[in-house]
């Protein structure tokens, strides 16, 4: 059930393009129906913006700088962290959980396309509805704190686009693995909630990793969390050198490979257990 290598998924490039186009346009249409809900949902990810004001206050109180972070660089970091968090949101665990428990997965399994792709396009198209709102908040945030420059140049934006897409792929695959656990458990969303709490504290939305105790940071570096928010935010704000960025990309690809394989294994084993309840 490897989603990209499966013969059923890819007929020819043209068919692939047609499928992508159809899935994108239909889910984009669906997401625009829910644009107001998406905006409200975005507000639930407001932690980095709150932390931004906390840290700016602290910096101002201690003579304008902490660990090399000025109010403007805090603003840039937390805005970038917030954007990164917004662009890596994945709710596929909830969808999988619902589909498996309610038996809705059945109608998806009857189609000659791995449901993976439909979930992917739901998330992908949603980003285009979320995008304009993100832009407005970023511009507003940059104007509020004087001297804030989110990113030094276009190159960093381009590199960021790559890194943030890899971060999304990581988050999406992790959530997918959590959702697929519902083949074995009564409910998998509790795990996703737990993951979300870890994400909030360990991914960099609370504070840049520089402010964590060195021992804690050393452990966090071995988890996927900083590669979802912290490192992408550092890439966007221009804080990393080229070799450091390459290292980030390498680690991200490694995590993607791990969760990609894990998802495939879990999915294949899970389908055998699927009870198609109520459907």
């Amino acid at each position, binding site marked *: 059930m490897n989603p990209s290598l499966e*013969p*059923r998924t890819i*007929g020819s490039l043209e*068919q692939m393009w*047609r*499928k992508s*186009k*159809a*899935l994108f*346009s*239909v889910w984009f*249409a*669906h997401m625009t*129906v*829910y644009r107001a809900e998406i905006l409200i949902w975005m507000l639930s990810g407001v932690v980095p913006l709150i932390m931004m004001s906390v840290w700016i206050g602290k910096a101002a109180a201690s003579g304008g700088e902490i660990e090399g972070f000025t109010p403007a660089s805090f603003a840039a970091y937390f805005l970038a962290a917030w954007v990164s968090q917004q662009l890596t949101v994945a709710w596929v665990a909830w969808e999988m959980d619902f589909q498996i428990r309610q*038996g*809705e997965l*059945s*109608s998806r*399994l*009857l*189609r*000659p*396309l791995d449901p993976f792709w439909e979930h992917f396009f739901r998330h992908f198209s949603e980003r285009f509805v979320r995008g304009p709102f993100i832009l407005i908040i970023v511009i507003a945030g940059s104007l509020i704190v004087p001297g804030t420059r989110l990113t030094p140049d276009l190159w960093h934006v381009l590199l960021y686009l790559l890194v943030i897409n890899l971060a999304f792929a990581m988050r999406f695959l992790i959530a997918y693995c959590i959702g697929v656990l519902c083949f074995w458990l009564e409910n998998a969303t509790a795990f996703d909630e737990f993951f979300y709490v870890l994400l909030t504290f360990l991914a960099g939305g609370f504070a840049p990793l520089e402010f964590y105790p060195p021992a804690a940071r050393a452990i966090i570096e071995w988890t996927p969390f900083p590669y979802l928010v912290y490192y992408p935010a550092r890439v966007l704000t221009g804080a990393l050198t080229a070799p450091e960025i390459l290292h980030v990309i390498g680690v991200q690809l490694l995590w993607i490979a791990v969760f990609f394989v894990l998802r495939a294994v879990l999915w294949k084993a899970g*389908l*055998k257990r*699927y*009870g*198609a309840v109520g*459907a």
Partner: protein
Amino acid sequence: MIEVTGLEKHYTVAEKEPGLSGSIRSFFSRKSKTVKAVDGVSFSIASGEMVGFLGANGAGKTTTLKMLSGLLHPTAGTATVAGFTPFERRASFLKTITLVMGQKQQLLWDLPALDSFQVNRAIYEISDADYAATMLEFTELLDLEGILKKQVRKLSLGERMKCELAAALLHRPKVLFLDEPTIGLDVNMQVRIREFVAAYNARFNATVILTSHYMADVTALCKRIIVVDKGRIIFDGDLSALIEQSSPAKIVKLQLESSVSREHLETYAPVQRLDGLFAELLVPRAETSRVSGRLLSELPVADVTIEDPDIEEIIGQLFQSQRVQPLPTLESVTQ
């Protein structure tokens, strides 16, 4: 087209005593038991055949259909559909079949049905020419004009079911598994859906397995029926043969002009019901015309109708008897 041998599906079901104490006990030690939803089913269906799958709720009909459409892995036994092993779920297999579940939907709730059609068109790799031709045909057969561009959630149940059927058949599958396709629909809409399935079968020589609680669906579409009970097949054969065999008598209903005593009526045939001027007699099939002739000439009859017994009743008797023997005039029954 469909070959099934010794198919079984067992589920492990968690059991819990009702109430708080039951919940606390099951929190620490969960009991479970194995339920045999399908217990050794075998049958064979030819290409183009329409077969009715009958049985009470929980008899194993839907589980069998799910195994045949590749959603469930069988616990034991084999199934072949159009030359494929269903649970391998190969793309070419999935393009050959469809499963319509009356109680489930595949259409996107917030968008017009046409959007869901577009997705299926791409996923099933339907060519522009085929899509246009199929849409033209379905729009006419199902009277879809005007409802395809409405949000699905704003459609009536009947309209939605028509769109569900069209979406499920857009890729022109050769094998149709229809699970309660008319559930909850009014009589007119049921007839419409039935006619559509019959037309589709005739047009594409499609093989159809149909389950329904409405016996009229089955009698209108299927010559052959398979009756399942507790996961086993208890009858497999011709519907008309089942009626003849299980009920050797026809029901002659008489509307009388003046009252006739039960004793007198009994001299013609056993009386099933006598209610004032209305009487029901059970007349052996072979003697139906002779006895009704006598009734008409010798009694003050205002009106007479001759009917087969209610099929639901016959099926009900079949469940109760539990010891259905392979009847000599029928195809063999697989237990």
